[in-house]
């Protein structure tokens, strides 16, 4: 797995900034052609999408609300990538993280918010990490391929949550499989309420303070990966496993730690969705955020700044996409899923198609500059 770092002494920006932009452009060109084939005007669609995502304070709120979950899952996938591990299980880990949040919300929702919120953060992290721990342990100790086990764990998580919500946690006397609503102490405050309290008025949106927590996590991610011993070990392991083991990096412990952090970050999706918006635990609240995380991590080149920007892009696509659907009915919301897949294709699978010519170009330019 490429962690995208440039070698010392070379200019870093063409590969770290230009390359993802090229990948994005390629994905958007393909999408544009598709939109045109569907009989819509790609340029009009783009302008509708942008105004739908950023046009009003409400739209911006929704965009950032979607972006919040994507920052969490993007960071989750990225921290595993740094160790050369592909965590496809972010979706399942987020779902199980919701179980942790749900239990806290139901059991301790009556306690003051300053107690419930930290408890929920701990619970979502612990449940998400726990769900990631098993595949990580199996990979580290038994050599089970983590890509396959995490896919299997997504399905197992879905079955487990359906079972719990349909048979155990369902609010008695109602049909749809969801828990009762938490007490208001277990609701995360909305940003528009906070801003309203200091006299700034914006339209209400689901954007809540978990957005701030996502930014804190992004900063902590940066410190962990580039400024701690564990982060260093993780990156060495990602670059060259044999060399890492030879140099004394504890392979198993590093894999398990990275995956546990990854699972914890995934679990935080539940803070945004369950505690911030729905105020109850319900089926499929993750809505594919774990898979968006793959695209976000690849596009953001596993760097927190890149991840936040890529998450913003996807937040805008999700919000703008639903607005776009009102205006042009042929462009359904699934269009966003197509773009997401194309970005994974261009940034990840076809990376070398773009990278190799760019590197050759750079080498040529350097050779010319220093004859």
């Amino acid at each position, binding site marked *: 797995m490429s962690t995208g770092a440039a070698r010392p002494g070379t200019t870093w920006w063409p590969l770290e900034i230009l390359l993802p932009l090229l990948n994005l452009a390629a994905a958007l060109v393909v999408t544009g052609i598709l939109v045109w084939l*569907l009989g819509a005007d790609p340029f009009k669609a783009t302008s509708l999408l942008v105004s739908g995502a950023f046009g009003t304070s409400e739209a911006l709120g929704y965009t950032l609300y979607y972006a919040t979950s994507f920052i969490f899952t993007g960071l989750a996938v990225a921290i595993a990538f740094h160790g050369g591990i592909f965590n496809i299980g972010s979706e399942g880990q987020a779902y199980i993280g919701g179980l942790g949040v749900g239990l806290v919300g139901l059991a301790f929702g009556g306690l003051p918010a300053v107690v419930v919120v930290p408890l929920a953060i701990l619970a979502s992290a612990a449940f998400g990490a726990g769900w990631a721990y098993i595949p990580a342990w199996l990979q580290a100790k038994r050599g089970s391929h983590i890509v*396959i086990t995490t896919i299997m764990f997504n399905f197992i998580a879905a079955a487990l949550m359906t*079972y719990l919500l349909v048979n155990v946690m369902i609010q008695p006397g109602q049909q749809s499989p969801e828990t009762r609503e938490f007490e208001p102490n277990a609701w995360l405050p909305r940003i528009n309420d906070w801003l309203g309290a200091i006299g700034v008025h914006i339209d209400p949106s689901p954007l809540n303070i978990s957005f701030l927590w996502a930014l804190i996590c992004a900063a902590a991610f940066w410190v962990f990966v580039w400024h701690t011993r564990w982060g260093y070990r993780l990156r060495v392991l990602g670059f060259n496993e044999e060399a890492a083991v030879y140099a004394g990096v504890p392979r198993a412990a590093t894999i398990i730690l990275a995956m546990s952090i990854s699972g914890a970050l995934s679990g935080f999706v539940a803070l945004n969705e369950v505690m911030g918006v729905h105020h109850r635990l319900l089926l499929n609240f993750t809505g594919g955020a774990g*898979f968006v995380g793959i695209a976000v991590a690849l596009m953001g080149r596993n760097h927190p700044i890149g991840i936040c920007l890529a998450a913003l892009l996807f937040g805008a696509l999700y919000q703008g996409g639903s607005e776009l659907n009102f205006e042009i009915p042929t462009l359904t919301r*699934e269009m966003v899923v197509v773009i997401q897949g*194309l970005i994974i294709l261009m940034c990840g*699978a076809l*990376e*070398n198609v773009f990278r190799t010519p760019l590197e050759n170009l750079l080498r040529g330019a350097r050779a010319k500059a220093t004859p």
Partner: protein
Amino acid sequence: MNESFLILIVLADSTVRVAAPLVLAALGGMFAERSGVIDIGLEGKMLAAAFAAAAIAATSGSALAGLGAAIAVSVLLSLLHGFACITHRGNQVVSGMALNIVLAGLTVVVGNAWFGRGGQTPQLEGSARFAPIDLPFAAQVQNVPVLGPIYAGIISGQNILVYVTAAVVPLTAWLLYRTRFGLRLRAVGETPGAVDTAGISVSLTRYRALVLGGVMCGLSGAYLSIAHNAGFVRDMSAGKGYLALAALIFGKWRPVPTLLACILFAFADAIQSRLQGKALPIVGVIPVQFIQALPYVLTVLLLAGFVGRAIAPKAIGVPYAKER
């Protein structure tokens, strides 16, 4: 006639129906994976093939045309996977996931634009789908004890693709283990360097394996939309591609054990719909979700080495770089 015997016949019949697409996809994936290319894109290819089959069958009125379209689309997607992973040495898992995600969206977008039914295709009738085929004498032998119901209830009355599946299984095993092509394919998945030294193109062999897998995945998708069902609905594959992948691993990348794994998973599915809400002796009511999760739990246990040991082809997931 014994009632529990009749239940068994019904269970076996629905096991066959559920197993057929799994077998096709899993054996298709086997070609790719034994040649050293991870095929997580089975799910997406199956979904795209199901859509193509239903869309073309609905517009042309011919099930064969639909089948052709399904195979063509699935093979093209396999070639795209090959272009990314073999030619450009991209990450195979990422490429497969990308395909799955693109196609999950694209089938709905295109279906909606084409037919305007929220991603569904029109209901297929008559020659636009593969109808069940009654084998000769099925009605006459029905009353023969034991063998009669087995013949009439399980073997007869399936659609053509089930019989194709039954033929494909020995064919796959023969191709993989008894032909020169199969030997090369397996060698490329274990030690590509040696095959290259012998003057055989690693890339070409892997591309061939992917094309074969694409054909079979196309059959599997067509089975879903124009044989087993009469039309495409969104997210029709519903994880069957991943289940086939699980069966392939559970079958340790070998044809016969993979077939048995598919049958086991399909049987679990068949039994689950019968057991719904019914209490069993000793264990009581088994939750549906438990049986649904069973194939995945078993696969994890196997991968962990607690139930036998699955050893993957040695070169799987490693792009081959010919030294220059």
